[in-house]
């Protein structure tokens, strides 16, 4: 993998393991504290444990999806190199296995870093809480073997994710080493099987989600079913992204306006649906997860505060989650930005002649820049809107299924406006950052480039 892909893979593994470890450690401490204070574990400790496992599951899943997408992007960018190796006799299978193996190693290293970092974070957090008198001393030793769960799960998930993400290697043909045969139009659609799988996952997952909410009226364990439902249905949406995103892109593209640069930009985002999907799906995932977490945590926090005594321990946990989570957020933004920059750059690079034509016909430099920015904005806005909607639904479902039995009714979805605001701001910044270099390049294309015949 390229340096950038490797670095991102390591970071994803370290963060998602560290997140999981820190959560499990904190849940362990809080469980011990609660037992010590109240004499027995009680519902609160059990619920914290469930909550911790759900979030660990989410972070492993999030890491795996981000890894799949990063690997897919990296592989797409290395088509020529892979083709060359295929030309010289390498098999596609071996290429793929090598990518997956490499990711396993990266994942293992990241997981160890995460184990150390996450435990340290939890210990320091606890010492601070004890120091400030927020939490009492307890005999908790931070050596509970359950914290090893993410350490094992993350590299394995990464390995599987890399295998899934490198599917494209199979479609690379040796001739692509010697001349560019152009972007295959619908290479990754994967045909009917993928669509069927995706549909089954979306429908089945949604049913599970509903079931989880219903069970949640009886017991907090409903959240586990709802979590499964969320994971399955969202995986379905990601699988079907190549069908879901292009129409959404087209819809958002209409909002861009009717100037020639906006129209051409809007049409362009739809020109290579597979590529645009790949660029946006990472962002959809990121925004969905962020929103899910935020909505769920805000809803939990609001509801739990008046249900549980000793809310300060809860605050530590929630603050811990929010802190580690901000790191994950930043990371998914970085991964999304990398994907977006490469998509936009490719789009500009491959269209030199067309851009020259536009310059020849009278597009000014500013119009060229605007065109690239609009193309990027269309991708970002679509992903952000979709992610926000999905995240609110999932986050609410999580809170509802966990708290339904205690609230004796429906939990209002709590919208964390500061986080929504941050997401929108982040989207604007991301658009500008990601389109800066490609826009400058597009503006530099000389009008005579239109006349160049290869």
């Amino acid at each position, binding site marked *: 993998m390229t340096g950038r892909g490797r670095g991102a893979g390591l970071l994803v593994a370290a963060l998602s393991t560290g997140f999981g470890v820190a959560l499990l450690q904190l849940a362990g401490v809080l469980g011990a504290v609660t037992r010590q204070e109240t004499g027995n574990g009680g519902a609160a400790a059990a619920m914290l444990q469930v909550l911790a496992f759900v979030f660990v599951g989410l972070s492993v899943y999030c890491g795996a999806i981000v890894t799949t997408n990063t690997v897919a992007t990296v592989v797409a960018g290395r088509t020529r190199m892979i083709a060359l190796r295929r030309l010289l006799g390498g098999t596609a299978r071996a290429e793929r296995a090598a990518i997956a193996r490499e990711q396993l190693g990266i994942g293992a290293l990241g997981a160890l870093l995460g184990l150390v970092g996450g435990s340290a974070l939890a210990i320091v957090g606890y010492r601070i809480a004890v120091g400030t008198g927020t939490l009492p001393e307890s005999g908790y030793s931070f050596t509970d073997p359950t914290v090893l769960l993410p350490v094992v799960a993350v590299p394995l998930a990464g390995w599987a994710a890399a295998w899934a993400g490198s599917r494209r290697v199979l479609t690379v043909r040796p001739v692509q080493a010697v001349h560019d045969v152009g972007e295959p139009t619908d290479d990754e659609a994967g045909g009917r099987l993928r669509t069927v799988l995706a549909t089954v996952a979306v429908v089945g997952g949604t049913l599970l989600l509903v079931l989880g909410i219903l069970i949640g009226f009886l017991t907090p364990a409903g959240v586990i079913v709802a979590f499964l439902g969320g994971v399955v249905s969202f995986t379905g949406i990601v699988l079907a992204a190549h069908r879901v995103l292009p129409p959404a892109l087209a819809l958002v593209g209409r909002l861009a306006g009717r100037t*020639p640069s906006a129209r051409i930009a809007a049409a*362009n985002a739809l020109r290579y649906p597979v590529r645009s999907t790949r660029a946006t799906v990472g962002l959809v995932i990121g925004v969905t997860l962020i929103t899910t977490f935020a909505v769920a945590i805000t809803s939990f926090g609001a509801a739990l505060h008046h249900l549980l005594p000793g809310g300060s321990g809860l605050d530590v946990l929630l603050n811990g989650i929010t802190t580690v989570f901000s790191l994950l957020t930043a990371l998914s933004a970085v991964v999304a930005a990398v994907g977006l920059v490469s998509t936009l750059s490719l789009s500009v690079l491959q269209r030199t002649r067309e851009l020259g*034509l536009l*310059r*020849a*016909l009278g597009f000014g430099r500013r119009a060229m820049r605007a065109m690239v920015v609009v193309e990027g904005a269309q991708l970002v806005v679509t992903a952000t809107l979709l992610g926000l909607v999905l995240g609110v639904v999932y986050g609410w479902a999580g809170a509802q299924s966990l708290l339904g039995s205690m609230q004796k009714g429906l939990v209002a979805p709590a919208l964390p406006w500061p986080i929504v605001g941050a997401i929108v701001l982040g989207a604007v910044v991301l658009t500008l950052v990601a389109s800066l270099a490609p826009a400058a390049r597009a503006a530099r294309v000389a009008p*005579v480039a*239109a*006349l160049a*015949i290869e």
Partner: protein
Amino acid sequence: MDSTPVLSATGVGKRYGAGDTAVVALHDVAFELHTGEFVAVMGPSGSGKSTLMHLIAGLDVPTSGRILLDGRDITGLGDAALTELRRDRIGFVFQAFNLVPTLDVIGNVLLPFELRGVKPDAEQRAFIDRLLADLGLADRLRHRPGALSGGQQQRVAIARALAGRPRVVVADEPTGNLDSRTGRDVLGLLADAARRYGQAIVMVTHDPVAASFADRIVLLADGRVAAEYGRSDPAEIATFMLSLEDAR
């Protein structure tokens, strides 16, 4: 012709690069184009035909000499002014890749209007409709370029170049990628536009038959104007070309 030319180039030179690797593509070229005139520029490969077209069309700037469009010197203009000039006053037909692939036929034809930020008025719209009908494109307006044959694409490019009634249409080997029959159709259309609408057109070609559609033929050799002829038939033009090669 005694009227003032739409376009006049005097003492135009163009050098690419600098130092040892510099290539002088044009030396001291003079060229004029009048309203309603269809001029063919011919010459061996590398003689500077495309270079001259780029300079005339404001796609590039000369290293010496002056080019006047409607009496206004365009040689000192910056990128923004040249962009505006191309948008408002020049129409292009290239050898290939003339069209924006994501726009349909009518979108491509109307693109120059959109770039100027104007809508064609009733008279212009009627002109465009007639043009599209003449070019046999009337039933193709909603097609993307990818769904058209090479000849059809070239006709769309011609429609776009003529639609805005630019002061000058510049065509660099517009029939270079077409079979001879389709090529002849395209040339007929250009000649027609010059005659009927008074359109000024300058066209580069290697084909004596194509050049026989023109009112005047300018021969370039080694970056200089080697000869000029009035309307000629293909056989005569072939002879001019041969004599040029013998002289070399």
